[in-house]
């Protein structure tokens, strides 16, 4: 009898111990909403979720994929509700700060500490993940912007990558002479022009000026901003850009480049997906945006995507487990391997990039020499400012003589959003 009781107690203890283990590895629910709606990222996203589920079978996980344009609007509804999803995809920079400054993003400092990420993520990405000293974001992938070009066309015409502004204008002239449109851009939906403004501003005025401008601390009517457009105008005067660029969305214009009608395109590395059948290996290459003022520090664009946990998330503990998995070496190496994009962890196997020589090139020629990494105009500044700003850039492309009135309009918008500049 006594022995039976004892055995029973031991059994109970074991059961309790087991239950403890189960509780530790997560029970209950977890809702994850993702904007990875393109085929390849979506398949990858589903795979990561399946792996997490296999690791924590006790968690009842719901995974919703929302088209990424709709997601940008839906996320505000999620965050305004009392039971938001537990984990959301999002963008670093002003877009993340917009939420975290309103206390809508949970402090995930414990996830960073428990996983030792401060030792495995470069300093720039640690800074990018914080708001007022608290970790609110987990960066998981980034990509770079560069001047992409058709290397076969360059070879045929005996052209070389441009390092400086005069060399770049020279490329325009040679390509025009050969009957190839020098620069593609599809500005129907405006954003590709944000890249032009960012690079020109960072090359002319330096990254710090650009940060201050996008933070609303400098007037758009400042003479230094005008100077940016004087360089832009040189490109227009040299007929560098695709005619009627506002007629095309970025993919229509990229299509012209794959057909060999255009030679260069200032774009993010996702331009690669427009090439089929592995032709990009023989046709596509890129170089760093040419230097205009050699005295200025180098600013580059590397928009960073990642994840955060809403403050009101009902299942914060599980959300943190999932964040831990998303930022793990295992998950990130897999991302590098399967999507071929750059991941921020510095301890991942460099061999994974061996089949993607573009990554080594981007790291060596763009990311590592950079003094500052920008997130892109529409991620670095207020959304309305970005919209009206880029509309102004489009108007400038159509009619550069309007510059004064365009800048006056942008300044009126800046002042309304950020307030008067106090010196």
């Amino acid at each position, binding site marked *: 009898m006594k022995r039976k009781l004892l055995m029973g107690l031991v059994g109970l203890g074991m059961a309790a111990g087991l239950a403890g283990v189960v509780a530790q590895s997560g029970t209950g629910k977890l809702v994850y909403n993702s904007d990875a709606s393109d085929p390849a990222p979506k398949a990858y996203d589903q795979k990561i979720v399946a792996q997490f589920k296999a690791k924590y079978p006790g968690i009842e996980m719901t995974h919703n994929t929302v088209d990424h344009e709709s997601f940008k609007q839906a996320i505000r509804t999620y965050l305004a509700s009392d039971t938001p999803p537990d984990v959301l995809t999002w963008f670093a920079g002003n877009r993340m700060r917009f939420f975290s400054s309103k206390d809508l993003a949970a402090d995930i400092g414990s996830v960073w500490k428990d996983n030792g990420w401060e030792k495995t993520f470069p300093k720039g990405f640690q800074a990018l993940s914080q708001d007022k000293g608290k970790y609110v974001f987990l960066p998981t992938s980034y990509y770079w912007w560069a001047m992409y070009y058709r290397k076969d066309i360059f070879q045929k015409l005996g052209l070389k990558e441009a390092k400086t502004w005069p060399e770049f204008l020279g490329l325009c002239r040679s390509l025009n002479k050969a009957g190839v449109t020098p620069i593609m851009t599809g500005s*129907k939906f405006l954003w590709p022009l944000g890249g032009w403004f960012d690079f020109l501003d960072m090359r002319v005025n330096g990254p710090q000026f650009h940060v201050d401008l996008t933070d609303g601390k400098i007037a758009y009517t400042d003479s230094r901003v005008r100077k940016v457009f004087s360089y832009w105008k040189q490109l227009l005067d040299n007929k560098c850009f695709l005619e009627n660029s*506002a007629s*095309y969305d970025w993919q229509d214009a990229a299509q012209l480049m794959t057909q060999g009608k255009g030679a260069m395109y200032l774009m993010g590395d996702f331009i690669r997906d427009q090439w089929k059948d592995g032709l990009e290996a023989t046709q596509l290459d890129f170089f760093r945006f040419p230097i205009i003022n050699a005295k200025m520090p180098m600013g580059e664009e590397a928009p960073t995507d990642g994840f955060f946990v809403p403050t009101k998330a009902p299942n914060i503990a599980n959300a943190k487990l999932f964040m831990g998995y998303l930022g793990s070496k295992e998950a990130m190496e897999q991302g590098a391997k399967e999507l071929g994009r750059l991941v921020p962890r510095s301890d991942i196997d460099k061999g994974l990039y061996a089949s993607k020589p573009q990554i080594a090139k981007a790291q060596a020629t763009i990311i590592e020499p950079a003094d500052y990494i920008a997130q892109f105009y529409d991620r670095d500044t207020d959304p*309305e400012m970005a919209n009206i700003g880029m509309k102004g850039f489009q108007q400038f492309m159509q009619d550069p003589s309007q510059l004064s009135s365009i800048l006056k309009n942008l300044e009126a918008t800046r002042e309304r959003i950020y307030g008067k500049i106090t010196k």
Partner: protein
Amino acid sequence: MALASRRTRSANYQTLALNRFLVIFSFLAVPLGLYFVWVLWPTLYTFYLSLTNWDSFTPPVFAGFENYKNLFSDPEFQHAILNNAIWILVFITVPTAAGLALATVLNNNLRFDRFLKVAYFLPMVIAPVIIALIWSWIYLPQQGLLNAFINLVLQLLKTIGFNVDPKSAYSIGWLGDPKLALVAVMAPAVWRQTGYVMILYLAGLKTVDSEVVEAAKVDGATGWTMFRYVIFPMLSPVTTIVVVVSIIDSLRSFDIVNVMTKGGPVSSTEVLANYMYVKSFDDNRLGYGAAIAVVLFGFALIFVMMYLRQVMAQEDEGTA
């Protein structure tokens, strides 16, 4: 005795009336409730929001008529109103005339008239978003169908001996050139509307009294005179409805603009509905967007009232 019975009778009537009211109310409760939740309340709430500044997160801040004041000094808003006015003018003339012409011709028991009617009506069946996508491809300067066609025509002209450069066709930027974009965006909308107007007029033509037409024939009316002085006046109730529907449809124009140009380039194709959407959901200024919605509502209300009056007047005629 008699008094007592009368009293019970009147009480009976009262319960009857109450019962009747309860029955009617129970039938109406559900639709009225839905109407309140889905139409009335959002409308009233939009009026309230238009008096606030709201970023969709932090609670709305009351701002009085500030949004309206800003609206009328906003050049893009003025541009949108102007474009809406152009839409209205084009919509009440072009598809109406074309639809009426088609209906008049197709009403004469032509060969293949069924096929032709279906063919002209078919665009109405396609979702506007799909129409917008397809037409944007047609308009692409270098890859699109339209410029390829113009190129072909120019080539023909050149072989005949005209001094033209066929290649210049590929530099027409239908949606990228602010001077062309508005026309280019309206064209598919007009194309879609024409079939709809045609069907309305075909239905109207069926109701034209054949005796009157016969009498007019005896009096010597033919062709244009017959149409101008006999048939067209008899179609006037249909014309009123067509015009009002066209105006309301042009005020509603959103999908085609949003997909084809999103109001660009440089707001040359901006219309109120798209501007409202951009301000509310891209720029997150929901109070400002609500103010645009209220202005649009005001415009639409005038024409909706006209429409309802016409429809009700016709119904009264029908019952009389």
